């Protein structure tokens, strides 16, 4: 019986003592000793583990993301999300040039030519704040060359050797990029590049020189902090695994539940699996979702957009950063709504957010990886609990009981949990709609259109579309007034929806949702900013839950099949190596 498998602990975290094993007896599984698949063409030097302290980079990024100004976030979630993609795609060079131009403008707007005042003394980074800063300085007579003029949309800089314009809408991202550079490199290092620009006779080429220097410094920091060697090795391992399995053909469509499981079974217990990030089922699952998305996007680009420019490339060459950035944005689309929700409102708690992160992935993977998602949620969570128990030393000497203690829901129960999560997402969306209705915010129309897709061509339908909003703002205002004060006048469907939204709001007792008080205009704006993301999450979850029940899969049988496999693999990973060598 599996439940009585005694086994010692190995591959435990460093602070866990390796324990003597008891005799495993006849029930012990006959696992072969796993090895990492060698990758053709790799040299030991090329695959040497990167010592990059990536935790420090994450910490730097989180510091920027959580920077506040008198209790308000300095950067909104969309800006932080954009900054993350810019850094991840290494597509920051062009933006650093823009940042240097903005630093010139900032210095020129200050009597003492301190560019710092714009970035660190003008409140939360939004286009309006930057516009107000330059207007105020212009009114006080402070602007100096090369700052030439500012209108509602952009600033113009006139250098002796050229002109440059910076849109106000771009400034929050540039400010966030500066914040990242300063947090990562230090003020002294960044100032070394920007200080020479604080002159009235600065040239455009000097700005480009400063930007190149800054880009080199950022690149050096990232090179020292990103585990690119491991990532590259993991990609090639996965490619080699797929190639062997598919007979030489690698395509996104080749990735299915079997591939993910077999790869994890083959690699997770091998020496070096921890460094490579293939120890846990969750990390392997996520890696294959990324792998699939990367293959899909690359094929899309390769075949449709730029066949020559990509076709001639080889590994190690530099791709156009803009192409990488665009493709990364497409790959990030499924989870982007989750990262864009304003932090002041607790739409989802930590556990729900973790579950959503596993469930929000490209729709084309929904069916081929449905079982993998279930495995990730059930056994991935169990593995997480097991690792925590090992780290705490709570597993004791015998691994098997610890494994069984860490097992939680089965697939049937988890299917129900996913359904509840989808219900919660709908509930949150409805509650948000109530805030938007009460605040008479136009975003209410978009939510209603999403929740009532079959709404007929009534005036309500016309009024809630964005196009109608542009054409006739009065009509939209009348619609929003009616929605707030007399929803029944807009038809039964909308009246029922408004009533359901009100009930949903009153039923939620979380931060940001207060009884009978949706908050002031700022709070309404936050709900409006979250609306599109909540709609996307609601849709994705609804479709995923429908997929889980499509064809009435036998989740009970699948769980019973998987359970011993995972238990054996956990034994292989965290048990004693000699134990298996003797098997």
């Amino acid at each position, binding site marked *: 019986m599996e439940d009585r498998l005694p086994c010692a602990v190995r591959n435990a975290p460093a602070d866990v003592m390796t324990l003597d094993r008891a005799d495993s007896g006849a029930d012990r599984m006959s696992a072969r000793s796993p090895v990492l698949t060698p990758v053709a063409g790799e040299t030991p030097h090329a695959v040497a583990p990167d010592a990059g302290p990536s935790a420090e980079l994450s910490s730097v990024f989180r510091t920027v993301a959580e920077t506040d100004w008198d209790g308000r976030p300095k950067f909104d979630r969309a800006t932080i999300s954009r900054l993350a993609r810019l850094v991840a795609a290494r597509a920051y060079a062009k933006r650093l040039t823009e940042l240097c131009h903005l630093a010139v403008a900032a210095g020129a707007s200050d009597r003492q030519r301190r560019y710092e005042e714009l970035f660190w003394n003008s409140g939360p980074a939004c286009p309006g704040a930057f516009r107000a800063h330059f207007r105020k300085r212009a009114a006080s007579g402070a602007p100096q060359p090369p700052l030439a003029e500012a209108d509602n949309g952009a600033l113009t800089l006139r250098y002796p050797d050229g002109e440059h314009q910076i849109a106000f809408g771009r400034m929050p991202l540039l400010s966030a990029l500066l914040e990242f550079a300063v947090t990562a490199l230090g003020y002294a290092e960044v100032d070394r590049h920007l200080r020479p620009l604080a002159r009235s006779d600065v040239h455009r080429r000097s700005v480009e020189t400063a930007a190149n220097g800054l880009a080199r410094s950022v690149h050096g920091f990232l090179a020292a902090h990103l585990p690119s060697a491991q990532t590259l090795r993991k990609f090639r391992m996965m490619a080699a695994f797929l190639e062997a399995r598919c007979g030489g053909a690698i395509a996104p469509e080749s990735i299915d539940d079997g591939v993910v499981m077999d790869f994890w079974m083959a690699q997770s217990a091998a020496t070096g699996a921890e460094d490579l990030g293939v120890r846990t089922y969750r990390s392997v699952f996520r890696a294959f979702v990324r792998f699939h998305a990367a293959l899909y996007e690359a*094929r899309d680009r390769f075949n449709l957009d730029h066949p020559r420019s990509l076709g001639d490339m080889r590994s190690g060459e530099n791709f156009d950063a803009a192409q990488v950035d665009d493709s990364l944005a497409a790959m990030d689309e499924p989870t982007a709504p989750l990262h864009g929700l304003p932090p002041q409102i607790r739409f989802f708690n930590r556990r729900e957010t973790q579950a959503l992160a596993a469930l929000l992935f490209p729709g084309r993977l929904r069916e081929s990886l449905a079982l993998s998602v279930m495995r990730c949620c059930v056994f991935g969570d169990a593995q997480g609990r097991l690792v925590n128990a090992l780290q705490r030393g709570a597993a004791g000497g015998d691994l098997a009981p610890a494994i069984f203690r860490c097992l939680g829901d089965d697939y049937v129960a988890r299917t129900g949990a996913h359904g509840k999560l989808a219900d919660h997402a709908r509930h949150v969306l409805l509650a948000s709609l109530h805030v938007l209705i009460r605040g008479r915010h136009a975003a209410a129309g978009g939510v209603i259109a999403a929740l009532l897709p079959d709404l007929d061509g009534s005036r309500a339908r016309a009024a809630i579309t964005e196009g109608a909003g542009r054409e006739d703002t009065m009509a939209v205002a009348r619609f929003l007034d009616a929605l707030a004060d007399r929803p029944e006048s807009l038809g039964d469907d909308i009246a029922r929806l408004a009533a359901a939204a009100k009930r949903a709001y009153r039923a939620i007792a979380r931060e940001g949702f207060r009884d009978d008080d949706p908050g002031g205009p700022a709070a309404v704006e936050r709900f409006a900013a979250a609306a599109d993301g909540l709609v996307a999450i609601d849709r994705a979850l609804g479709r995923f839950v429908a997929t889980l029940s499509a064809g009435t899969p036998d989740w009970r049988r699948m769980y019973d099949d998987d359970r011993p496999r995972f238990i054996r693999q956990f034994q292989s990973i965290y048990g004693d190596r000699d134990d298996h060598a003797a098997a």
Partner: protein
Amino acid sequence: MITPPPRPGSGEMAFAERLFDAASTLDMLRADTVAPRPVAFPTLYRYATDPAFEPDPALPGTIAADARLATDFAALLRRVALASIPPAAAAATEGEIDGRHAGDWRIRIRRVQANPNQVWVIIDYAGRDVDLPQSLFVDGVRQPLPPARDGRFQFRLDADSNLVRLLRDIDSEVFLV
């Protein structure tokens, strides 16, 4: 048209590899981490430039304990200060000093006659600038300045206070912001 499968080493695979790396980095940037957070630069900036800003009381100690942060903060103070009195300009005697002098600025430390446990810190300005400092910084420690009278700032401190010790330290740099 049926798309032929890519081969490892092709441009398509190389691009996919680049995307995989970027997506992995994106996940890493968004990951929770227990690593200690660096001090956010806006906090340093406000501490340096806004006398009304009250930071975490631990901030001066954090600055003193972190070499890079101390370097950054000193660089920032050099940038925003109306006057700085670096160690070299302060050197009258080795070890401890009772005064500093640089440009139009002079700082003196004098014992309070009525209370030997306290000292006067007297800052004299002989220049003509309209802008006068509101804070004094020594090694990350901030001291708000009282209003000036006829170009003189004067305030009392305990003789054994950290700030007095730092002002007397020949190796410390004083900034007037």
